[in-house]
């Protein structure tokens, strides 16, 4: 196998008394894109939110088991440290409305009270916006609030914001489901490019998108990980019957 960056061992997640993720063991290869798929309510988003320990912010929710980044068990770190290593992009673009575009990009530093010289921040902003493919569109409006941006631009701003703190992994929760087809296409191309810098784990409802973008596919059903493998193999020759039914549109 390739170089693994993130591994879960016996990962369970629960809401109240109900386990919504059951005993998931999976390894994500470095600098790859993994699509997490499955019918609604199968625990895709819950699984994703366990990985940066956002799940436990929900009242009565929690997880147990190991999540290993390199050699460290993330469940033993402070959640705050975990989230600095593993960034997240949400379903709806959510730039901070009170901040300028510039401040949004460096929000990770500002929120955590990390001070840097102006010139370093300038550099981080330019670099992150370039990686997110937004630099050309906003470079003259860096100090305006981001509210005039389109949905797709806002989402790329959120990606730049996640990239700015140099995370190793970026989690994306249906990052294009609130966007139009053209914006979706731009974001998809961007995700493929991001592979050079980070590892991407994304939840998607869109089979075609998973096919276009991802290297690996994980298929969840009722909280179980039924199948994980190279996207091509999972799509053309699924081992599991339920995966096949999902891929052919019989369930979902």
């Amino acid at each position, binding site marked *: 196998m390739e170089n693994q960056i993130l591994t879960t061992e016996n990962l369970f997640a629960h809401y109240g008394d109900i386990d919504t993720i059951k005993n998931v063991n999976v390894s994500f290869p470095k600098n790859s894109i993994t699509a997490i798929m499955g019918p609604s309510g199968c625990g895709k988003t819950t699984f994703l939110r366990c990985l940066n320990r956002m799940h436990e912010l929900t009242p009565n929710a929690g997880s147990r088991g190991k999540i290993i980044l390199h050699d460290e068990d993330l469940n033993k770190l402070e959640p705050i440290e975990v989230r600095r290593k593993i960034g*997240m992009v949400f379903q709806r673009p959510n730039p901070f409305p009170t901040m300028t575009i510039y401040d949004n990009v460096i929000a990770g530093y500002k929120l955590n009270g990390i001070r840097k010289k102006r010139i370093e921040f300038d550099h981080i902003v330019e670099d992150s916006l370039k990686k997110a493919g937004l630099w050309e569109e906003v470079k003259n409006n860096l100090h305006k609030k981001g509210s005039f941006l389109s949905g797709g631009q806002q989402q790329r701003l959120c990606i730049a914001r996640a990239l700015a703190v140099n995370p190793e992994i970026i989690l994306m929760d249906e990052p294009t489901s609130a966007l139009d087809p053209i914006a979706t296409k731009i974001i998809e191309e961007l995700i493929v490019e991001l592979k050079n810098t980070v590892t991407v784990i994304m939840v998607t409802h869109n089979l075609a998108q998973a096919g276009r973008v991802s290297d690996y596919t994980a298929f969840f059903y009722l909280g179980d990980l039924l199948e994980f493998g190279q996207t091509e193999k999972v799509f053309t020759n699924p081992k599991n019957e339920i995966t096949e039914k999902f891929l052919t549109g019989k369930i979902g």
Partner: protein
Amino acid sequence: MELTLSNNNKITISSNSIKYSDNWKLGENIFNSVLTGSGIMIIMIVIGIFLTLILSSLPSIKQFGINFVTGTTWDPVFERFGALPFIAGTLITSFLALLISIPFSIAISILLGEYFKRGIFSGFIKSMTELLAGVPSVIFGFWGIFFLVPIVREFEKILGITAYGIGIFSSSIILAIMIIPFSASVGREVIELVPSDIKEAAYAMGATRYEVIKKIVLPYAKSGIFAGIILSLGRALGETMAVTMLIGNFNKMPTSIFAPANTMASVIANEFSESTFELYTSSLIEIGVLLFIVSTVINLIGKWVIKRMVVR
């Protein structure tokens, strides 16, 4: 025959439907005019109050002119009336009260709006705050005299200044307690309205709860919080009973925040029954006009600031 019958029928039906639509129109018209009438009535009442106040204060306006606002002597015996001590008293007590109340009301807003949105604890605090808003002000005044004033007096002894107990400081503390529920409840509502997806974004970037509140929630909610503070300032400016009982009713310019003083509302309440001649009454009414203007101006400034702070 049949035809006639059917004709009759038709006529009956159509006349019925006309009747029905007439009723409907009538109801609509009555409803509309009640609504419009109420609106016009409010305008008339406000204008009416203002006009009658102005008219009744004409003698004092004619007599003193601008000196009424700048004059510092209030002496009914020699018929000299200057309202500056009361304007100063009102503004000082209100803003001091605001200053004391702001940390508490913001803390309560955050506690109820972000930390404990639901549950027994939050329900208990919420109903206690509402209860506090419902306590009659005479009870606040009474409690102030018997409980707060002795404490303030001890405090003043420690500071080594004349230990009146009553005065601006005691009044401001009572006012602060009285206005906390107003700014806190508005603050709680606007903090609850902060979209959860931007809070999630901040948490996902490794922000702690305190950092999320300080850098995301408060900046987003600041215009609403400010609106609540202005609302409570409006209450403080006009509060009469509790202040009258605690301020000392001393009609000279206040010399320190611990000194006895008087406010516009208090002097009206205190001296109205003793105003034996027209100029005296008219001077008190002019103070009323000034109070009216001060509250309005502060409200307008508040609205203007809120407009500029709103997150778009």
